[in-house]
């Protein structure tokens, strides 16, 4: 292939929701099967796989291959916070540009429902790099991303002034308006 262009042949996503009856691999497999069907190819053509996931504990790419087709291709598991799925796309994009493969599959999957804070231990014992005797979330500020980013927005407004909360509301309004165009939004 002489062209430097990389084409997106097929794309798919699962419906947003808690999916109590589907695990991570089920969700990844559904998106994969529909993507390659949309592209009109099979796993046989795929020459590289990048699998993005943050909270699942690793090895999603290998597990996905067992679920949908294991052909001995290189697989890269990536984790990069909010940019995890985009990083999977970048890994495949760069591999195609480098000529390592003609077809690649990038997948991003996450399951967040059902988490809870770990309980305190029976006797206090300092752990980790803050020598904490229990989980910090909710006690030393928040660790959830909506809370952290809310504070970043507040700090931006406080430091530079003039950043109205109307502006943040307009961004939210725009994003929600986009979601109404997505039949898979919850």
């Amino acid at each position, binding site marked *: 292939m002489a062209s430097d262009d990389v084409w997106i042949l097929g794309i798919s996503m699962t419906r947003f929701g808690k999916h109590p009856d589907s695990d991570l691999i089920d969700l990844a497999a559904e998106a994969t099967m529909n993507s390659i069907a949309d592209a009109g190819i099979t796993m046989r053509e795929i020459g590289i796989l990048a699998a993005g996931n943050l909270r699942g504990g690793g090895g999603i790419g290998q597990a996905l291959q067992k679920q949908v087709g294991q052909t001995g291709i290189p697989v890269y598991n990536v984790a990069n916070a909010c940019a995890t799925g985009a990083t999977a796309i970048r890994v495949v994009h760069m591999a195609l540009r480098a000529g390592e493969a003609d077809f690649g599959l990038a997948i991003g999957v996450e399951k967040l429902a059902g*988490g*809870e*804070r*770990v*309980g*305190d*231990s*029976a*006797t*206090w014992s*300092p752990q980790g*790099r*803050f*020598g*904490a*005797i*229990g989980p*910090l*979330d*909710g*006690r*030393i*500020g*928040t660790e*959830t991303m909506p*809370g952290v980013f*809310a*504070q*970043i927005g*507040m*700090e931006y*407004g*406080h*430091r530079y002034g003039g950043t109205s909360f109307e502006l943040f509301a307009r961004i939210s309004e725009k994003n929600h308006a986009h979601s109404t165009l997505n039949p898979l939004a919850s």
Partner: protein
Amino acid sequence: MPQPVPFVDYLVLGERPHLVARECTACGARFFDRRNACASCFGTSFTQVDVPTEGEVRAFTIVAHAAPGVPVPFVSATVDCAGTSVRANLINVAPTPEAVRLGMKVRLALTAVGVDQAGTEAISFGFEPRR
């Protein structure tokens, strides 16, 4: 009765409760955990310093939804203690937009976490409004 223990190792209890930080000797950047090199200047020498117990709220959010097990609502904040950024809850203040505001003057305050099976009490910190 056993001595109370601090919730984190950078909280010093006793007569004059305060926080301690590791300060980069080259640029003065402060960190509450151990570092191999300074994130700002890559310096590798640190010294322990006391953090001022008074500061002002630089950012906050009122958390209404959290993981099961985390009591809500609570106020999460970044407090500027004379140049040192401290992550903490705001305590002894109503968790409402009317009661909390940016630039609010606050001071370090202690709060009870609970007692373990050995009868040891754990003490954490937050910041409360200065009156």
